């Protein structure tokens, strides 16, 4: 897998969904995409382990999904619009997931947004 340096590598806390990322996360993201279908949501609810067997996920990706490690999923090739399908399944808000990825609670994250969002170059 290519690891060419990119101009955006220095932007902190950001996982640009580029070719490398896409290749790493293809199956993970396609698994997430499948949750658009209500029948698949039922199957996922009935047994996550068995459901995930249908995709050739890496052990790390599988663990990240089962543990709802939102940041881990991104680092393993996930794209937020795809991985958020799991959060929708769980009934979680974007603030809850944003908080989990940046190490604060949902309430703290929501308050940060009300205060004008993150703009500390971090």
């Amino acid at each position, binding site marked *: 897998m290519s690891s060419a340096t990119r101009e*955006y590598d220095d932007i902190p806390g950001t996982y*640009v969904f580029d070719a490398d990322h896409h290749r790493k996360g293809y199956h993970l993201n396609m698994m997430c995409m499948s949750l*658009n279908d209500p029948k698949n949501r039922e199957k996922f609810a009935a047994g996550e382990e068995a459901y995930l067997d249908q995709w050739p996920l890496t052990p790390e990706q599988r663990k990240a999904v089962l543990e709802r490690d939102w940041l881990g999923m991104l680092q393993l090739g996930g794209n937020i619009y795809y991985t958020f399908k799991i959060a929708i399944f769980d009934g979680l808000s974007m603030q809850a997931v944003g908080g989990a990825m940046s190490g604060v609670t949902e309430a703290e994250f929501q308050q*940060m947004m009300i205060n004008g969002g993150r703009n500390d170059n971090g």
Partner: protein
Amino acid sequence: MADVLYGVASSHVPAIGAAIDHGKEEQPYWRPLFEGYEGARKWMADTRPDVIILAYNDHASAFDLDLIPTFAIGVADKFPIADEGYGPRQIPEVIGHPELAWHLAESLILDGFDMTICNRMPVDHGLTVPLSIMYGSPEAWPVKVIPLAVNVIQYPPPTGKRCYALGQAIRRAVQSFEDNQDLRVAVFGTGGMSHQLQGERAGWVNTPFDTAFLNRLTDDPEGLTEISHVDLLREAGSEGIELVMWLIMRGALSRKVREVHRHYHVPASNTAAGLIVFEGSEANVLL
């Protein structure tokens, strides 16, 4: 003659759609956002364009990682509301304008824009939330809509320069549409403004950048096309790169426009929400 007379750019945050669908517009969290939409809704009700060409991005609804068209145009009679994981929004289906859509597809391709042509195209919040922002919750949408899906999820999206040029080509195409109805067309650009949904930097908002973007969209859109993707990622956030779609709208308008409405509010969910409404000039006055 058909013409592009109006331009609207708006965020398409899903939570805004949910707030409308669940009657939360008067709640303290949402009130300041919706208050700022009132003037635009009134303008929309008075103006009543016949067709909207709506540039938006699909969010893993009609397209997935197996097929990533950079620019895709919907030519169907109608477009169902996508199930994004919650069940589809309970809103009217979107009615297309196949005659104009096919004319656009042909004209744009012959003009150098290699469009992907789509019939089966469920539309998600990227397209439906801006309609809800401008029209509220009608029984049926009072306008026909041609979906124009732009890839902004897989890096790289089309450049701002290319998006602006596509808008200009859309204007030429609309003006060459032979009909007897003098279709009044609006172009919407959606997404943005600054926001980042992912990573440790989730929650990024850059109000000075957004304010400058709104100002320049009116007066210096060609200057905005010079902003590189890397600068957009850095300044507007990883999902703020959606702002390239606003340049499609602006490219489709006359060079000089009248800004009739503007609203900016932080936050709508994890996003800086922006809305701007333009009236362009008649075709032969100022090109």
